């Protein structure tokens, strides 16, 4: 199972901070986004046209082409605003 984390405004929008998901049949981050969008509602709004949505795989920034597998820690979050 992969661990999926959601942060900040995205976490509030989805009302979900984390979940575990079997991604054995999902090859890339882009495909995972597509599958999350298919949940409908807030998920579709967040992941179907994810403008400004950032993502990481195993705590490194990643793009849609990144390969994913079970055991990975995958995170989605809005643009960062620290400092």
């Amino acid at each position: 199972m992969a661990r999926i984390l959601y942060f900040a405004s995205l976490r509030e929008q989805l009302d979900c901070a984390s979940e575990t998901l079997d991604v054995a049949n999902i090859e890339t981050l882009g495909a995972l986004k597509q599958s999350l969008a298919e949940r409908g509602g807030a998920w579709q709004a967040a992941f179907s046209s994810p403008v400004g949505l950032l993502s990481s795989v195993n705590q490194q920034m990643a793009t849609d082409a990144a390969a994913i597998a079970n055991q990975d820690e995958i995170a989605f979050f809005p643009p960062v605003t620290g400092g």
Partner: protein
Amino acid sequence: MKIAVQTEDFDLSRETRRLCAGRKDVGATVSFTGLVRDMSADASLLALELEHYPGMTEKALGDIGNEARQRWDISDLTIIHRVGRLQPGDNIVLVITASAHRREAFEACEFLMDYLKTRAPFWKKEITRDGESWVASRHSDADAAERWQHND
């Protein structure tokens, strides 16, 4: 290199002393302290909530620190970023660079802040008298970070 993400406040002079302790190669330190500022038109900010991604945040700050050490001849550096609930006027971030020469220390410090603002996973939420809202990222921060990519 000291990287810390913490709820507690920090003390600039103590951190500067710690950074330089036992060294004789440091000729200059440069520090940047960021404070929580009320940017509302009607001074309505009550607090700022700082959220981060535990694990990745420390890693990202370490990567940024290592990149600075590759680009400038700096002896050592410190990055401390606070998280949790902060009040207007509170300290939020501290960057200190130590180097033999001032120019390296100045430039590395500015670079660290510019990269931190666009690459480290922190998010600010403003709590005002009228409610809560997430702070939007700023193009000017992205532009400030990008200029270091054309600087070599």
